[in-house]
């Protein structure tokens, strides 16, 4: 009953549900390892993108060096695995905690810097770290990275399910953490208030320092989980996880999907990442793919500036102006209060003109 009332009537939730089910049944649909590999990577990267969204989309702390958390955790997991031979179930959580710790350290300058200045500082951190990694190459593997890590699981399908389960749980936690409508956790509202106007937030009794650091730590932690999964999945932790392009890519995915929505970055990754990988299979794909990707981004920013998910959501859902319940766009009357929906459409159209 609850299911029918609160999921099946809202198109966005139906899509999310179908998407989740598809992911869970995916190994049954295809046994092609290459495709399974792409989807596994997409899942890991979507966790990474969502962690960026928590920090930059919701809290407004622009991170242009998010690969730092991903890479640090990948290296930490790898070192723990190779030197201490810990199990995967220990290396990934410890690696993520290292990510959270690094998040706190990067968060310290964020207490004084804003916007693009913060972005530039965060940009510098992964570059510093890759410098350190190349310097201590005996210990870190240098250019080649650390390889030969333990597998997540013996076969690809089990590994796929492990990744999917961890990613889904993590994204759900971040969804709740940033949900402004939540009645239990108030952090969502709090972080948005900090993004909108830090001064007013402080004047309203919010300890913005504490919560900004919390956002950095949480974001670092979950990016760290993604990094740990990635390292154990490909069995290498290399300097490519710290590269500039990898930091920028997460920003592009999130903006394309829709910043500050959680589901946006997930959609962004699952659309753009497989696309760039599939193009590679075609002749000249390697050369063309970034041109094509850039074109898609430019067009999407022109026509869907708030991201593809927000654009689609506005097409398939509408909010009743009287009782604020979300309805499918095809309904003529509100499902809760029976108010005619064409009023809503008319008002929206008028608002657009003003």
């Amino acid at each position, binding site marked *: 009953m609850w299911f029918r009332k609160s999921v099946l009537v809202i198109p966005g939730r139906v899509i999310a549900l179908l998407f989740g089910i598809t992911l869970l049944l995916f190994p049954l649909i295809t046994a092609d390892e290459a495709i399974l590999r792409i989807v596994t990577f997409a899942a890991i990267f979507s966790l990474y993108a969502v962690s960026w969204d928590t920090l930059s989309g919701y809290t407004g702390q622009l991170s242009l060096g998010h690969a730092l958390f991903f890479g640090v955790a990948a290296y930490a997991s790898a070192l723990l695995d190779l030197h201490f031979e810990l199990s995967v179930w220990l290396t990934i959580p410890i690696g993520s905690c290292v990510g959270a710790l690094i998040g706190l350290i990067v968060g310290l300058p964020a207490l004084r810097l804003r916007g693009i200045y913060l972005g530039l500082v965060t940009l510098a951190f992964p570059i510093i770290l890759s410098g350190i990694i190349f310097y201590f190459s005996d210990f870190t593997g240098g250019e080649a990275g650390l390889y030969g890590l333990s597998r997540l699981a013996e076969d690809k399908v089990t590994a796929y399910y492990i990744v999917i389960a961890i990613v889904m749980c993590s994204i759900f936690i971040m969804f709740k953490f940033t949900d402004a409508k939540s009645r239990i956790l108030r952090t969502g509202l709090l972080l948005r*208030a900090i993004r*909108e106007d830090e*001064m007013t937030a402080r004047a309203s*009794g919010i300890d913005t320092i504490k919560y900004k650091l919390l956002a950095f730590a949480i974001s670092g932690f979950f990016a760290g989980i993604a990094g740990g999964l990635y390292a154990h999945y490909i069995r290498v932790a290399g300097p490519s996880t710290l590269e500039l392009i990898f930091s920028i890519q997460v920003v592009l995915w999130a903006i394309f999907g829709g910043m500050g929505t959680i589901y946006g970055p997930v959609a962004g990754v699952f659309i753009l990442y497989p696309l760039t990988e599939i193009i590679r299979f075609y002749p000249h794909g390697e050369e063309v793919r970034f041109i094509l990707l850039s074109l898609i981004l430019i067009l999407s920013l022109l026509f869907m500036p708030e991201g593809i998910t927000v654009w689609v959501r506005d097409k398939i859902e509408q909010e009743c102006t009287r009782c604020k319940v979300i309805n499918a766009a095809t309904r003529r009357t509100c499902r809760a209060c029976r108010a005619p929906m064409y009023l809503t459409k008319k008002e929206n159209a008028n608002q657009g003109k003003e």
Partner: protein
Amino acid sequence: MSLYLEVKNLSVLYDRAIVLNGLSLHVNSGELVSLVGPNGAGKSTLLNAMSGLIKWQHDTLKGTVSGKITLNGSVKFDGAELINLPAHEIARKGIILCPERGRPFREMTVQENLEVGALFLDKKVADDNLEKVYALFPVLKKRSSQVAGTLSGGERTMLSIGRSLMSEPKILLIDEPSVGLAPLIKDSLFERIRDVQGMGVTILLTEQDVSFAFDLASRNYVISRGKIIAEGTSQELLANELIRETYLGL
């Protein structure tokens, strides 16, 4: 009546520019006090200093030109010194600032804006306060799911007073409530501020509109170049020819 809020010898310097120059004033419990003066007299700086925002600006921008701030003096509330407390703790003690032009969280709905004011309070208390605020400002209830950036100037001011009331204030510091408002809206705001005072909240407000302030307040300060130059009831101040002509322009 007790000495509730006491500002003594407060000085604020932005780099070498003196904004507040050893300013002293006090507010008694339950009073509605106004602070009138021209642009650049230091009204907003005073309220920001009292609510801890000047200190915050000083701490976060240390080392930059805009961080060269000197803050001296004492602000006492109920006997406790506030001058070195961080802004959020001052707010939690019940000294709440309504910034100029409301300064709402523009991309959040009216209801979310209000809820932010009570985030440090218990959820149940917050719900009660929300009811109270909606009862006082029915227009906010009507707009509850509207994004705050689309509100009119008067509604924004009401929203900011509403958000302050959510935090269960003991003293409201309202920065220029009537700025840029049409006469009719001013009148209704006037009544609402009276209502807030009726709820037992002490109010200190700054104004450029002298008649608006004098009609509301029981006691007034005239501020000029960072100093209090006159104090008294409206009648007393208006009776003083020099002050009336030089500073009030009436």
